[in-house]
């Protein structure tokens, strides 16, 4: 345990002292949020308005909050993975600079190094994502505060399990990468694709049935759904209180992936958590085995 603590401490220190790495990881969620607000804010808002029947006027504040909470959940869903990839670049850097060669001539087990990278990446990713949650809360307070304290806590829990998943995915991918070029290529692909795959940029419900079926195998989709539930729940309740029929609310919820359907059945909340946690654990185990066998060079 002492050795693991030393490794985690070393990795975290390096992440926070490498100003370029730390600041770019920290700033990226804020930039992403600004981009969302600028380019997607009105699209989302108009989409909500289009659902409302004639005769029902919702306060501007509520519509803004609904839009803001959807943007926030999209942001967090993407960040838990992209920030993890950014934080995890230390693993690649260590291979490139030869630090791993130095580690490999010590009696420490290879699996411990793998766990060390995993935990330190998860910690730094979580910290940055929690900072993004804090920024998001300020944004929600400005747009319209309808979120409850239990929902904030559940949102933090979602961020936690999704960080574990993002860290596991980035760790497994980075275990096979050993150059800056490969790392940049992977980061570019992940940044460009992940938002679509997890339903952050466009709701999965807006895709074709076949694509929805394919994406239902991807745990990130359930992550976005969980985040939507906890960030938007307060706003939906306020809509109900304003006299919007439940049928309309359900239609809006389905349109933003509040519910995910597999074979026309809604995936229950507990199952979403199990899918994400299970996948995170499974991928993390794969990663540890991959790290051990990759280091035994032939």
């Amino acid at each position, binding site marked *: 345990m002492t050795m693991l603590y030393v490794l985690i401490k070393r990795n975290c220190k390096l992440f926070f002292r490498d100003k370029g790495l730390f600041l770019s990881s920290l700033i990226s969620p804020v930039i992403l949020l600004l981009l969302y607000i600028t380019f997607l804010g009105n699209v989302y808002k108009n989409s909500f308005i289009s659902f409302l029947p004639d005769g029902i006027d919702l306060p501007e504040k509520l519509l803004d909050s609904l839009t803001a909470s959807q943007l926030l959940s999209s942001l967090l869903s993407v960040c838990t993975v992209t920030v993890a990839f950014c934080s995890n670049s230390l693993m690649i850097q260590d291979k490139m600079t*030869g630090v791993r060669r*130095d580690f490999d001539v010590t*009696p420490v087990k290879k699996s411990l190094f793998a766990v060390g990278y995993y935990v330190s990446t998860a910690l730094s990713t979580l910290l940055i994502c929690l900072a993004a949650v804090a920024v998001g809360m300020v944004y929600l307070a400005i747009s319209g505060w309808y979120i409850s304290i239990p929902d904030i806590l559940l949102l933090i829990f979602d961020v936690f399990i999704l960080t574990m998943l993002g860290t596991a995915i980035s760790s497994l991918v980075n275990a096979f990468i050993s150059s800056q070029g490969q790392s940049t290529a992977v980061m570019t692909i992940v940044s460009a694709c992940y938002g679509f795959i997890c339903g952050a940029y466009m709701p999965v419900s807006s895709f074709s049935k076949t694509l929805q079926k394919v994406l239902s195998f991807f745990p990130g989709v359930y992550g976005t759904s969980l985040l939507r539930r906890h960030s938007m729940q307060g706003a939906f309740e306020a809509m109900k209180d304003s006299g919007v029929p439940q049928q309309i609310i359900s239609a809006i919820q389905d349109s933003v992936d509040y519910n995910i359907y597999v074979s026309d059945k809604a995936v229950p909340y507990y199952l979403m958590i199990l899918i994400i946690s299970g996948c995170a654990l499974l991928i993390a185990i794969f990663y540890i085995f991959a790290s051990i066998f990759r280091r035994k060079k032939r």
Partner: protein
Amino acid sequence: MEKIIKIEHLFKSFGNVKAVNDLSFSVREGELFAFLGVNGAGKSTTISMMCGQLLQDSGKIEICGKDTCASMADIFSRIGVVFQNSVLDPFLTVRENLESRAAMYGISGRKFDSRLNELASLLSFENILGRQFGKLSGGQKRRIDIARALFHNPDILFLDEPTTGLDPQTRKILWDVVTELRRGQNMTVLLTTHYMEEAADADYVVIIDSGRVSAEGTPLELKNRYTGDFVLIYTDDENFVSSLGFPYQRLRDSFRISVPNCAEATRMIVHNQDKFVDYEITKGKMDDVFLSVTGKKLTVGDEK
């Protein structure tokens, strides 16, 4: 002296390239062992296999009586490696770097402080402990690399081109430390270097070429076997030097005459006593041995 490293019929290929091709040698305990070869000769591949970073295709490596394929975990705590390039963390201080690496050998707390003071004094880096490693000069970095390799008191120290690009003062510190460790702790040192004067101080030298041993022996044995002697005569009379009938090289204020052996040099001097007023007889250098060996690889192989 006991053999602390034994390598038998070692083979390693990368695709069609045979990096190590039936390599066999041994290193005795407490010895300064120089491992020489041009770039790509197979030195680093061999060291990587000895340090457990590469697996051999076939052959056997035994370190401290243990097979590297079966007991590498036990061997790691008995070897220290100074790599060609610094492999410490640039954003951490010297102390933090050594602290994290020492912990990998179970050294922490007071034990760490005590060993740190010992090494800082030995390698003269007491005043840079709080400085960021990445901001140190090349020489300072090298001293910390060596401290890192020595932290757990290894039985064998691998030095992979440790002095390349270093200033003379740091090179001297490094060699003083190595000498002291060998005397005080009977530490075995396996060195690869491009500086032949460093190899000349070794107890035993192995020269490899294309993954095979081209020549081996003590520096004296190699000099006697692969180079002749040289007579350095301080004169400007080139006609006389030329009339001696031996190959020679003109230097700034002298001539370097190559003779087959010391007896021949004596005979030449006795016969020309009036001309040999200011002169010296020297053995061939390790540079000459190296050039001779790598330049006559097939002949040497045939002779062997």
